[in-house]
């Protein structure tokens, strides 16, 4: 409990920092001091706070989505971006943008989550057909499936001159977040809360189908609940800020190493640390080339792939 409070404090400090980092002049002075101007307050309310909230909500829910996927596939290296989920969601947004561009963003998100669900289901179906399920083959299959889906997406986008919009969904970026354009992420936060209430069911499912059945739970129902949560969260995040790679992989793995896999206990940690990691990466992205920005998809990609490689090699040592 003490540790959780400390993690929450760290998150609060990062969130405060995030609110005050940027090109526009926002400080305590410009907000409340002598030279207080309506401009700084405006900037704070319209851009800085929404951006920070968006980061926290997206970070929490994507990290938790990754953890759910790892429990359900019983594989440490599966997350929305290594299972075709995120790529399918982008394909969904592209489809709805082409066919019914006037639909409200909420409906677009729902369409994207249906695609995400279908893509993930396809991934699971392929897994069932693969006889050799080594721990590394599973994410490889997911990455290949994601590659195929995003190739289709890119081809369609190229034909219809939508490559630029596509790029916005594929690479996570919080710089465009303004009030009125991120609120969808509250839905993914709500789903994270749902995941917390169902945490025991996911932990049981993580022990396998036989254990789940023995304990009187319907394995397929747990699987469905998990996949719906993951698909909706992924779709909401991809629609509003774009893909954040590796997040759902690194945070749950690190937490699992220290705390284990009892989700009721580890989920709050995954949520807090997920938000903290994205905040830290976003702040770094804003400072490295100040006053320009590096999108979060890039900073997370660099930090994430390094950590991912470390985890992979570490696992190998344990296995070998």
């Amino acid at each position, binding site marked *: 409990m003490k540790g959780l409070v400390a993690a929450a404090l760290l998150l609060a400090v990062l969130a405060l920092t995030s609110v005050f980092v940027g090109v526009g002049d926002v400080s305590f002075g410009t907000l409340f001091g002598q030279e207080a101007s309506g401009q700084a307050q405006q900037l704070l309310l319209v851009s800085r706070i929404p951006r920070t909230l968006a980061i926290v909500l997206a970070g929490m829910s994507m990290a938790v989505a990754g953890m759910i996927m790892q*429990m359900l596939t*019983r*594989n*440490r290296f599966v997350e929305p971006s290594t299972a075709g989920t995120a790529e399918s969601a982008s394909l969904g947004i592209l489809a709805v943008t082409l066919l019914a561009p006037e639909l409200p963003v909420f409906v677009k998100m729902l369409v994207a989550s249906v695609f995400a669900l279908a893509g993930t289901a396809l991934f699971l179906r392929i897994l069932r057909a693969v006889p050799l399920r080594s721990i590394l083959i599973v994410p490889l299959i997911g990455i290949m499936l994601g590659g195929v889906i995003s190739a289709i997406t890119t081809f369609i986008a190229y034909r219809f001159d939508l490559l630029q919009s596509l790029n916005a969904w594929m690479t996570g970026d919080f710089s465009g977040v303004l009030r009125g354009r991120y609120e969808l992420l509250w839905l993914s936060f709500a789903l994270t809360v749902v995941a917390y209430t169902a*945490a*025991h*069911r996911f*932990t*049981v499912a*993580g*022990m*396998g*189908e*036989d*254990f789940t*059945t*023995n*304990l*009187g*739970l*319907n394995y397929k129902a747990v699987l469905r609940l998990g996949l719906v949560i993951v698909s909706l969260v992924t779709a909401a995040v991809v629609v509003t800020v774009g893909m954040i790679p590796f997040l759902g992989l690194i945070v749950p793995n690190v937490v*699992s*190493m220290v705390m*284990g*896999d*009892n989700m*009721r206990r580890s989920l709050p940690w995954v949520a807090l640390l997920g938000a903290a990691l994205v905040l830290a990466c976003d702040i770094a992205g804003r400072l490295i080339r100040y006053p320009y920005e590096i999108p979060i998809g890039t900073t997370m990609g660099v930090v994430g792939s390094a950590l991912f490689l470390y985890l992979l090699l570490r696992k190998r040592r344990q296995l070998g």
Partner: protein
Amino acid sequence: MIEISKVTKAYGEAVVVNDVSLSLPARGITSIIGPNGAGKSTLLSMVSRLMPMDRGRVMVDGLDVATTPGDVLARRLSILRQDNSVSSRLTVRDLVTFGRYPYSKGRPTVEDRGHVEQAIAYLGLEKLADRFLDELSGGQRQRAFVAMVLCQDTDYVLLDEPLNNLDMKHAVTMMKLLRRAVDELGKTVVLVLHDINFASCYSDHIVAMKDGKVVHQGAPDVLVRPDVLKDIYDLDIAVEEVGGRRIGIYYF
């Protein structure tokens, strides 16, 4: 009582369990023995609704396992299969606590906690209770799984090769523990066993399977005889009486 009637399971052409009818008495240890590929584990999986059957019906205390809601059955019958490749990092105590899930749905009461500590103590896991499963040896993990199943506190306990990975001392302790659960708590234990001598020493009833069929059944002194064992295993097994128990000797 477990009533198995005309149960069949086939994988493609291969019929693994062939039209088996059997009734297993309540309160007692029933051991299912037989050579590899006889269909013992498959039968146990079907009885415990882990695997659907192609034909037939299984009733446990009058409940049809195919149609009874999962959580109702989970308070009557528990099952542990032999290959438990659990990759979750759970502590032994967490794992055993999940045995109470059918009752507490994840909110263990004081009474549940009592069951958990008791099950941990029964299997001598006190010192390991806070260790993660992936930090244990195969035998320790096996004991943790059995503790979880016992913690489920069901009238019927089905165990597929519970002595897997256990050393001699822990194997004997496990069998004595199961015997106690039957004698003191009135449980019904059904085991798949490879070691005919454990089956002989601890069972009330032995069922022998071969090629998907039940070929013999009865009390240990009826089953553990050279001619019967020869028929089951196709191996010459001498039977000696040691301390009133029938012991099969087949090592040379």
